């Protein structure tokens, strides 16, 4: 019993809601306390000081009366003061002769213990209304008689207690408000957090489609909800991707593996000549190397899709990359009597160079893939054109060929792994991974892609691939510009 209470108390203590609320409560209480203290000091404190000054002043006045007219003058002054109607219920006077007989004043007798102090002290005095607290000062006059001046503190004390009560009431009210406020705050916090926790619990249990419902208000929690929902969207995408990939991979890797195993099993049969065995080994080696390439490409696509390579990104001059790829494939184009042309956006002026943030090897690979595809599918005598330009805050690359293009029914599937568009035969080499790799790379760079026919409605509509990439931000500093130029010498 005790431990569960301790446990729940500890839990309460560690609750953020509780601690926040407690902090505010303490702050509120402290503020209230300060205000009350100031008020108290200003009222009650001041009153006390004023009273003491009055007593001292009166004493001084009466003593000067003595100097003026002796004991009788003092007695007269006292009588006058008592009967003048000013402060009559609070002023206290008493004049005693050397024997202790009262000569004037409104106090019946000298309180016990009141000696010749030069300090104002508090004593209980007998008043018409009863016993009351009073502040008294006693001086001994030069002729030996004793003079007592004082003030009745009853009213002040009543005021003090009134103020005290009011403060207590205010304090209690504040405390009550704070407790209620804490409770409400905690409820609200738990409500907002509860929504998040419920959704994440469901996701953890396996339902990735769950999302946190968004209320209308745009506060910090709504934004948090939005962020979490976005993250869940991304996770769902990745999971779908993985599911799709493992299916196609399973098929496209198992088939060659089965082939290899079959060939090796057959080769183990009796009476195989060493020539036959050598052929089997060579063919198997080739198949495994091909398999390795497919594997490598898949890995690269997976890496690109997961965004894992974004750390290595730097400024890349898009025109340079495209020009290099065009140069590389120039010989291939020549060989098949095709024309390969690049209209660069920025022929001469480096200040208008198109800069994107990314990885030049990945981008070169993607462009190479597109050029390769264009030359491959458009065939002999093809005309392949590339163009780059800036549109708003994006760079655009167009790769266009005049081949047979993509049939409308295939257009959706292009870019999925292992899909080869028709017409394809065994003399058009490839693995069906090129476009998926290209799209994954473009996507990794924050870009988009579209495929459309180059000349729609004609017999050979061709294909135009349109790639957009976000431009790199910021101007190029001169030092960086120098390093963006490709070195003219090569590493030996």
């Amino acid at each position: 019993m005790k431990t569960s209470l301790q446990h729940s108390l500890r839990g309460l203590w560690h609750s953020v809601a509780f601690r926040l609320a407690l902090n505010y409560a303490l702050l509120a209480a402290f503020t209230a306390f300060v205000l009350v203290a100031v008020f108290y000091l200003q009222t009650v404190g001041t009153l006390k000081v004023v009273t003491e000054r009055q007593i001292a002043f009166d004493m001084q006045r009466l003593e000067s009366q003595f100097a003026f007219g002796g004991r009788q003058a003092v007695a007269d002054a006292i009588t006058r003061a008592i009967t003048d109607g000013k402060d009559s219920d609070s002023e206290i006077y008493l004049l005693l002769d050397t024997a202790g007989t009262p000569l004037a004043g409104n106090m019946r007798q000298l309180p016990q213990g009141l000696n010749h102090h030069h300090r104002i002290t508090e004593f209980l005095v007998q008043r018409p209304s009863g016993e009351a607290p009073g502040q008294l000062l006693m001086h001994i006059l030069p002729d030996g008689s004793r003079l007592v001046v004082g003030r009745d503190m009853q009213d002040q004390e009543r005021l003090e207690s009134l103020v005290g009560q009011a403060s207590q009431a205010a304090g209690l009210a504040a405390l009550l408000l704070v407790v209620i406020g804490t409770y409400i705050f905690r409820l609200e916090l738990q409500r907002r957090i509860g929504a998040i926790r419920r959704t994440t619990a469901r996701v953890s249990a396996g339902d990735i489609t769950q999302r946190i419902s968004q209320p209308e208000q745009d506060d910090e929690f709504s934004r948090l909800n939005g962020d979490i929902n976005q993250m869940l969207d991304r996770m769902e995408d990745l999971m779908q991707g993985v599911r799709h990939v493992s299916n196609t991979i399973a098929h496209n890797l198992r088939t060659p593996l089965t082939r290899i195993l079959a060939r090796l099993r057959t080769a183990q049969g009796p009476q195989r000549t060493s020539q036959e065995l050598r052929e089997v080994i060579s063919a198997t080696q080739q198949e495994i190397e091909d398999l390795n390439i497919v594997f490598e490409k898949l890995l690269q696509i997976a890496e690109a899709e997961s965004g894992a390579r974004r750390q290595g990104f730097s400024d890349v001059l898009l025109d340079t990359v495209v020009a290099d790829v065009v140069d590389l494939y120039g010989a291939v184009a020549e060989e098949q009597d095709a024309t390969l042309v690049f209209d660069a956006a920025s022929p001469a002026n480096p200040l208008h160079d198109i800069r994107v943030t990314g990885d030049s090897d990945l981008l070169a690979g993607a462009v190479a893939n597109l050029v390769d595809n264009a030359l491959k599918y458009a065939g002999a005598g093809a005309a392949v054109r590339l163009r780059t330009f800036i549109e708003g805050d994006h760079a655009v690359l167009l790769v266009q060929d005049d081949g047979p293009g993509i049939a409308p029914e295939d257009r959706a599937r292009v870019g999925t792994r292992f899909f080869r568009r028709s017409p394809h035969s065994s003399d058009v080499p490839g693995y069906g991974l090129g476009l998926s790799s290209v799209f994954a790379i473009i996507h990794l760079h924050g870009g988009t892609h579209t495929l459309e026919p180059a000349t729609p409605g004609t017999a050979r509509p061709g294909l135009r691939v349109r790639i957009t990439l976000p431009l790199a931000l910021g101007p190029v500093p001169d030092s960086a510009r120098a390093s963006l130029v490709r070195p003219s010498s090569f590493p030996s």
Partner: protein
Amino acid sequence: MWRCLIIEDDADNARYIAEGFREMGHSPVVCRDGLEGLTRATSESWDIIILDRMLPNEVDGLSILASLRGLGRKTPVLVLSALSSLDERVRGLKAGGDDYLTKPFAFSELAARAEALVRRAQAGPETRQLQVADLKINLLTRSVERGGKSIALQPREFRLLSYLMTHHGQVLTRTMLLEAVWDYNFDPQTNVIDVQINRLRKKIDHGFEPALIHTIRGSGYRLSADSGNDGFD
């Protein structure tokens, strides 16, 4: 003949590499773990070190490389790894590696790259004129002539020829050529390098004797006056 140190814990792979080097006429030594590898690398002199990244006891070969470089040793190191991402490659080269090869690899690729590293380490001062048989190129004036006839080459063709000539006699793989001449590290589709080589051949080999650019089946290309096939298949 090179002294090659192979730091690799997989027995089959280590044997594959060691036998390859032995066939080339070099003398390989195999170390199966990082500590032994580091000790031998620092205490003896080697022409080339082949270093695998995944070593026993979760040692990353790059830490050995860093120690080696930290001690001021400039032995050429070729890093092997199953980790193929560009980030890992960059890490390998930044740690002091001279080249980075991903597994699985053909020994011919390893041999070609190893040769390039050893030659580079032994290289003398840079020359500006190169000549193989009757083919002459001048790296400064960028002029090419063969048999007294001047040959016009496009800039990239000249770069390709210079690379072949600077490394004459060595086998240069397609990936090495793509890296060195076009400065890119990606896997080219089809046979784009082959076509480039063929175009170069048309200009500098056709109509001349002897043929200088040889295709080494399964490996790459080699420029040399003799047609000896080293056969690294």
